[in-house]
């Protein structure tokens, strides 16, 4: 059976996308020409390739979901999808993929949306080079940019996501690769993981999101070379880890966040070659965190390097560079001769009485910090970096 191409334009034989989809045989190609198509609830139930030429616009007029894919091997490329309906009972999406495999969603622009790309129980697909621009104001009536729910082996790369609730949201999704995405100015999280294991995210940029990035209740996550920037606010973190085990955090940059990494109930995580720069708190340890290792990280000009809320420590800090280190190196091996204590008494006081933050860098605080450094009482006495480096590490 020969594959045919069906053209869609306002003066063509088929003037709507819905008609074209109905008419098409499996594995046909639908070519949509430039123009605006006021359609919604386009259900695709056979393998099709839908290509938009010169950015045709599909306008849902806020009536509901726009494209629903319920078939394997569907490609959607080069479309501009706008005005997805908002509902409080149904999660309308611009493009939804349901129980399908081998899908490809590429080079699309999604605007004025509720949910952007919603992948549901779908595997082995790709979501590439899409631009998603929401207009979210409140959390309760806005949706996520890219949502994955019970998905496996999906690649999410080079997407730009702005102004939605959660930039990328993963729930019960394993072996997902998230690379080179830009998730900025989102209402809640730039990236949000729940109950998702064995996922990798690399080279992404998360900037100015309401609460940064949250990784919760997941295992074996690899986080490499991402940038977490300018997440400011009272409940705002560069990276929030809750109940995360056996993961690797490597080569990331945390810059100007209120809290660089907030760790709660996370065990056996390796932090190495990260840069923590000008954060309020570089790392905030909330408790129940065991056997984590911090090696070869740069801690540069943070207001507080590490903060603990108890005086028990089971984590290892070794061979990091701390810009607040004041020791010396007599044998010139590049390693300071005096251990560095990253937890200050003042961070303990601020944990207890948050208003005291206003006394930051006062001479009196320096004096009490010094006395605590000499004889630790409130802060964990075994928490120190025995081999603090004298020069910042240059990561390769």
């Amino acid at each position: 059976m020969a594959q045919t191409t069906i053209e869609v334009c306002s003066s063509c034989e088929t003037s709507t996308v819905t008609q074209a989809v109905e008419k098409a045989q499996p594995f046909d190609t639908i070519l949509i020409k430039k123009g605006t198509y006021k359609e919604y609830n386009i259900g695709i139930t056979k393998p099709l390739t839908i290509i938009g030429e010169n950015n045709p616009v599909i306008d849902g007029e806020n009536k509901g979901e726009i494209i629903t894919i319920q078939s394997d091997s569907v490609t959607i490329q080069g479309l501009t999808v706008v005005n997805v309906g908002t509902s409080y009972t149904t999660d309308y999406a611009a493009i939804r993929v349901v129980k399908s495999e081998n899908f490809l969603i590429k080079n699309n622009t999604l605007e004025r949306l509720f949910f952007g790309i919603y992948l549901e129980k779908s595997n082995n697909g790709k979501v590439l080079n899409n631009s998603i621009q929401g207009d979210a104001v409140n959390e309760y009536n806005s949706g996520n940019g890219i949502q994955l729910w019970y998905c496996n082996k999906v690649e999410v790369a080079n997407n730009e996501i702005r102004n939605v609730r959660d930039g990328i949201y993963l729930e019960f999704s394993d072996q997902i690769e998230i690379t080179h995405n830009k998730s900025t100015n989102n209402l809640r999280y730039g990236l949000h993981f729940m109950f998702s294991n064995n996922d990798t995210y690399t080279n992404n940029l998360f900037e100015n999101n309401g609460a940064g990035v949250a990784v919760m209740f997941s295992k074996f996550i690899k986080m490499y070379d991402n940038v977490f920037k300018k997440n400011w606010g009272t409940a705002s973190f560069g990276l929030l880890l809750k109940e995360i085990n056996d993961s690797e955090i490597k080569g990331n940059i945390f810059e100007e966040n209120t809290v660089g990494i907030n760790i709660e109930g996370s065990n056996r995580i390796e932090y190495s070659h990260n840069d923590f720069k000008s954060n309020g708190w570089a790392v905030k340890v909330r408790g129940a965190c065991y056997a984590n290792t911090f090696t070869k990280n740069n801690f540069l000009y943070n207001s507080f390097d590490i903060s603990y809320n108890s005086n028990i420590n089971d984590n290892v800090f070794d061979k990091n560079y701390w810009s607040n280190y004041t020791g010396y190196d007599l044998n010139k091996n590049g390693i300071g001769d005096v251990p560095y204590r990253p937890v200050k008494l003042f961070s303990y006081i601020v944990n207890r009485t948050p208003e005291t933050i206003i006394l930051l860098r006062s001479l009196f605080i320096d004096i009490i910090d010094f006395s605590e450094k000499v004889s630790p009482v409130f802060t964990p006495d075994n928490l120190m970096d025995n081999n603090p480096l004298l020069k910042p590490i240059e990561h390769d």
Partner: protein
Amino acid sequence: MLKILKYSFFDLMRSRWSYVYFLFYLLLGVVLLFLNNDLSKAVITLMNVIIVLVPLIGTIFGVMYYYNSKEFTELLLAQPVKRSSIFLGQYLGVALSLSMSLIIGLGLPFVFYGIFNSGAIWDFSLLLVTGAFLTLIFTALAFVIALANENKIKGFGYAILLWLFMAVIYDGIFLMSLVYFEEYPLDTFSLVATMLNPVDLSRVLILLKLDISALLGYTGAVFQKFFGTSFGFILSTLLLVIWVAVPTFFIQHMAKRKDF
């Protein structure tokens, strides 16, 4: 007044102490940059120096100058010159020459190091401006103390005590009261308490630039408004001006009534 200002200013410019002060800052700047090799870090260290040392030097120098030039002042008083212009002239002469030593002394090494091509330029300028304000405030306070005390030793004692109180003890009491009353809403109190001490005020002004990400971590509408907008910056600057104006007014007021 301008004449007296000019006289005091050039008198001080020629004096040994101005040079010592200038050289001290020059050395400090050079050493800091030499040891750190990093502008951002040097700016942080410098901040600690400025909020502690500048008030101390301002106070001591102000008191010292007043007592040293007392005979000359009495001579001037015999002339047909307004009293307020004599004292204000002297005060401004001291304060301006001190600020100049500070700005040039610290500025030179940083300029040579290339501050103009660095992102730290605004932080650094803010530091210098704050330093100048602190000099003006504490020299004025020193003049007030000196005018109130004929006894040199007493005057010096009070001046040192004033510095110790503002730089260290005040924050101690402040911290204790915050911890003690931690169950109550404290954000307005802590902001007001900060405003009442010029050292804390300038510290917060600098924090607004250096540690804004940490300051925004605290939940509280008043803090949020203060730190999150330019409101905090404007208010702090305004209060620093008031902190200069009030003691200056006292100098004038006391100078008018004092018996010599």
